[in-house]
């Protein structure tokens, strides 16, 4: 805890030092070092198998690191995981809702799991329904919702617990462009209020939303910077070109 108190002053939502994960002989994440300022929206980019989801899983207690250390809001993910779990929430890549429960019941369920009393649950559910414009589907069973609505519910279920750090693992995967843009607006509205870590394969999503971007490849951190910095350094016109150059190892200005 002393360690945690010391780190609380640093104003990092997440601080990662030499974090490593091995699955047998396969190294999924190689000695990752990263600092994510409190309140920022940070995008983790990489091709499939780059180690993004494994990193998120380690930071949320879903996978134990093989080595290294990470602190979430000053708390160690190794020795203070129970505390970390109270401060974070995740919107997983796959839609993770209770299918036979209504939208409202899903939100109430998660609020209850995080120990909210009745009054606070009512207040937070109302807030989430309004924030995500879900009033019109609040009594609809989750399994009957369209992909876009399910994605919104997925994020609202993570946000209702008032996390200090929110992990969004490919939040707009598989939804149409209008629903995606709407979700972007919802995510954008959270900027500055909480620390958000976003993984995505959509470059325009990262470019539009992220304050800073970390690019990973084969479990290693290849580059960190704002979208504009990454484009400038790689002399690219768009983030996608910058991403490709970085991942393919084309030499560029550090």
């Amino acid at each position, binding site marked *: 805890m002393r360690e945690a108190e010391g780190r609380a002053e640093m104003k990092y939502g997440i601080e990662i030092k030499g974090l490593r994960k091995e699955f047998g002989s396969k190294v999924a994440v190689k000695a990752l070092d990263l600092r994510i300022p409190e309140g920022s929206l940070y995008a983790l980019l990489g091709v499939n198998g780059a180690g993004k989801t494994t990193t998120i899983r380690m930071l949320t*207690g879903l996978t134990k690191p093989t080595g290294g250390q990470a602190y979430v809001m000053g708390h160690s993910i190794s020795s203070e995981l129970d505390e970390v779990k109270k401060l*974070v929430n995740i919107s997983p890549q796959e839609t993770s*809702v209770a299918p*036979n*429960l209504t939208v409202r019941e899903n939100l109430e369920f998660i609020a*209850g799991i995080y120990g909210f009393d009745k009054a606070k649950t009512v207040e937070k559910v109302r807030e989430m329904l309004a924030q995500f414009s879900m009033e019109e589907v609040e009594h609809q069973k989750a399994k009957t919702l369209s992909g876009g609505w399910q994605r919104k519910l997925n994020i609202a*279920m993570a946000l209702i617990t008032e996390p200090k750090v929110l992990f969004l693992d490919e939040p707009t995967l598989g939804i149409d462009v209008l629903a995606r843009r709407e979700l972007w607006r919802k995510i954008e509205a959270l900027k500055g209020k909480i620390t958000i870590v976003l993984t995505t394969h959509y470059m325009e999503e990262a470019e539009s939303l992220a304050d800073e971007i970390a690019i990973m490849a084969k479990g290693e951190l290849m580059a960190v910077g704002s979208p504009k910095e990454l484009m400038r350094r790689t002399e690219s016109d768009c983030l996608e070109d910058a991403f490709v150059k970085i991942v393919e190892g084309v030499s560029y200005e550090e």
Partner: protein
Amino acid sequence: MKSKVFAVRTWKEIMRDPLSYIFCLGFPLVMLVIMSVIDKSIPAEAGMQVFRIRNLAPGISYFGLTFVMLFTGIQVSKDRTTALLLRLYASPMKPVEYIFGYTMPVVVLAVMQMVICFSVSFVIGLCTGNSLAVTEMLLSMLALLPSVFLFVGFGILFGTLVNEKAAPGLCSILISAAGMIGGIWMDVDGLGGAIKTVARALPFYHGVSLARLPFGETAEGAVEHLLWTIVCGAAVYGLAVTVFRSKMKKDIR
């Protein structure tokens, strides 16, 4: 508190599936009525006792529990295949709260099922001149409680180990075994031989026999049936809890 919230969610998930009503309630009740009609058609000189309402009521109530196992298995495996458990693993919930959250709703469902089965049996008994006493039915329900944990244990076990498609298959093996060698549909004592030896080595025969004891004239074998039922119920449920916890640890290794 968290386990109660999770239990309410599990209850809603199961009760909002129409198949729960068809299998957990409809099917045992249909079997109860059909077997009662068959019993009326069997000549008295055949000496066939197994379909008499005093044997059938506890037998069908036991049979109904096998469907509780089926729905427990489906629910646990479904939760595992959707990403809902992943979200919950990232929450402050403890393993014991998951177990309680899965167990409590299905125990309530099993008790409700027993009450309905015995109530219908009571009416059939009145119609056929074989009335069942309330104390007999209450004692029989009490005797069925260890078997509730046996089948809930099997449900959690199968749901943890296999996927949503394989869990019903595994459960159906036990549903058939419980019905046949448990002595619900045939007189195992009358058959003897290898069948009886196998039946006595499994918990189903003892569970059914224990549930039938309050309706019988003697308490023969009561201690053996009671011990087998309690030990097997506790062992299977304990194994299910251990396997669930170990699988959960493995999932987040």
